[in-house]
């Protein structure tokens, strides 16, 4: 009786980065498929779709003891109503405003049961303007958060910058988010398969992510800015130690931790253990068997005020050897 859930793609990015261009590209290339498009403001560029719904960006805090847990009340209403239509949507695409915080949007898909029952967040796609990113990212914290939350980053307008600047932009993106796949584009021109049907929040696909590991000299201390930290250990993890640590850490620091992903090699277990989280909302499952693969545990945190040395020590303390 379980129906396939309608995939939802979230497109974020700063004003003028190329979000609507990407949206129209998807709609044109996927001609014949039926999409519901939800936008926050009608921009100058028209949207080429039958069904475009205007959202109000109503951010509601939840009373569940987690101060960072917010949802978008307008999206709950819109999606619940859209799913009662007879239309069989192939997908939904949400385009946020340039200054939108992606967290309440993402959390809506994990917190509200009506939304969760019918649709599933497929991926967060963030469009970055290669020209203006470095100037804007330190001024507008939403921009850093949009990059930090992304599963796919379209590094757009690469034809308008020289190689040095492009490398500087890429370095900054990589410091913010080591999980995301970065695709360089001109005029948001990207193979549609690279942005749709990614299953980025699907636990069975957490295994596909290959975070870049930090270079030795790329050493961040306690940092007010958003950074991403990638940890790895070959020693098996003691489940109880890890569970106690991660619960405590997320409870204390969930406000600062934007996204978490992990694949664990738990001692005595034949299968991988995978998990992911958005702020304090965590989700986990058993993954594929290790078989003959080399066993190791990997963990990525994206957030602010993260101390890499402290996290590394805590993670190492969760191993059987510790």
């Amino acid at each position, binding site marked *: *009786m379980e129906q396939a859930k309608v995939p939802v793609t979230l497109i974020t990015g700063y004003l003028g980065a190329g979000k609507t261009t990407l949206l129209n590209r998807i709609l044109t290339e996927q001609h014949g498929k039926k999409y519901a498009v939800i936008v926050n403001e009608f921009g100058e560029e028209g949207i080429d779709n039958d069904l475009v719904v205007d959202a109000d960006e109503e951010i509601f805090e939840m009373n569940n003891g987690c101060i960072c847990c917010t949802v978008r*009340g307008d999206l709950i209403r819109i999606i619940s109503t859209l799913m009662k239509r*007879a239309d069989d949507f192939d997908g939904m695409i949400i385009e946020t405003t340039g200054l939108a915080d992606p967290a309440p949007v993402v959390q809506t898909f994990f917190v509200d049961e009506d939304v969760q029952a019918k649709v599933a967040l497929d991926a967060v796609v963030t469009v970055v303007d290669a020209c203006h990113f470095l100037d804007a990212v330190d001024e507008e914290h939403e921009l850093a958060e949009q990059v930090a939350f992304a599963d796919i980053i379209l590094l757009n307008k690469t034809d308008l910058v020289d190689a040095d600047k492009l490398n500087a932009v890429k370095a900054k993106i990589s410091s913010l988010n080591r999980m995301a796949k970065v695709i360089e584009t001109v005029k948001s021109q990207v193979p549609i398969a690279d942005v749709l049907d990614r299953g980025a929040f699907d636990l069975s696909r957490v295994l596909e992510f290959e975070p870049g590991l930090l270079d030795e000299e790329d050493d961040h201390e306690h940092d007010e800015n958003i950074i991403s930290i990638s940890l790895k250990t070959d020693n098996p993890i003691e489940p109880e130690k890890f569970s106690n640590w991660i619960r405590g850490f997320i409870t204390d620091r969930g406000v600062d931790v934007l996204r978490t992903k992990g694949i664990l090699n738990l001692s005595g277990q034949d299968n991988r253990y995978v998990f992911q989280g958005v702020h304090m909302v965590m989700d986990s499952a058993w993954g594929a068997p290790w078989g003959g693969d080399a066993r190791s545990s990997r963990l990525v945190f994206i957030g602010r005020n993260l101390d890499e040395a402290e996290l590394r020590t805590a993670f190492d303390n969760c191993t059987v050897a510790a």
Partner: protein
Amino acid sequence: MTGGGMMGAAGFDPAALGIAGAGNPDAGARIISPSVKLSESPAVGVHPTFTVIEPAEARAVIGYGDGTIRSIGLVLDGAQPSVLAQIAATPITAAVDIGGAGVLIGTDGGELLRLGGSDADKLAETGGPWIGEIAVHSGRGLRAFAAAKALTVLDAGGAVVFEAADHPSTVAGLSFSPDGARIAAAHYGGVSVWKLTEPGQKPVRLDWHGSHTAVSWSPNGQFIVSAMQDKEMHCWRWKDRTGMRMSGYPSKIRAIAWTADGQYVAASGADTVTSWDCSGKGPSGKPPLEFGYVYDGVVRQVAAHPADHVVAGGYSDGTVLIGAIEQETAMIARPASGHAVTGLAWTADGGTLVATDESGAVAVMRILEPVVS
């Protein structure tokens, strides 16, 4: 859950069950228990968005996500719902119009429609924002609707008698006071209560942190209850504005319903139908009364009997139970269909109950004996 009729066999007349056959007005009915007969239309594959009973036409009117409005008579003759109207937008919400005649419908096209007979007239339009909430006060001849943050009240002639444009968020629930002098609007952060006779004044704000998604004023005027995004309800005693939390629900509360005398307020959201005793100072310190556990099901809809301390509960598996609040017992009125119940409505005499589920099926249930004596 207690199966079967709770009244026992006393006073039960077997002839009332009827025998299926030609010319029998109950020809389409199945006998569910000594107390209930059921006639059910098949799934149509479209999700109902509202289910109301229109007393003047002795029919149930059901709105569907594809814009179809269907009606079905309240007899058990096996007739199928017929298409009453087809509207361009998606109907989101509805209420029986003034005097029990006609149905008011709010749409995602921003229209307020009145369906009388089979004609849909447009009473108002917003030019954009969805009309997501409607309330009617028959005694005073008032119709209220909410679109985005704005509330508008019209009189029977269609003139605007009250407007409040700027609630803290989209208005997610509306309820008139029983005397029709005030209206309560639910939103993020609480409920605003407006006095309709004094436009321009500030509302009484009943504050409670979080998103309030429905509101209902008790029929005795003493309490205002809201349902919240946070899987709980909040109750305010109107005379002194004292607030009370009603929490512990495992899922979202989609429906709240007061008994006719205002003593109990029932809610969906748990694996049983929960009813809070609001007599005396209110529900504080009194755990809710419960009936009707269904294996692997959660209560999605509740509807209170028009006279007795009796509530119908519609479950996520399609089951409909009718229960006596104080006895904490229930009888089955419709077996599980596999599709969640989306709407429940009683006739004014409490003799017939109509339910719809996510498949679009409509169940008409005749109650053959009183549920409580």
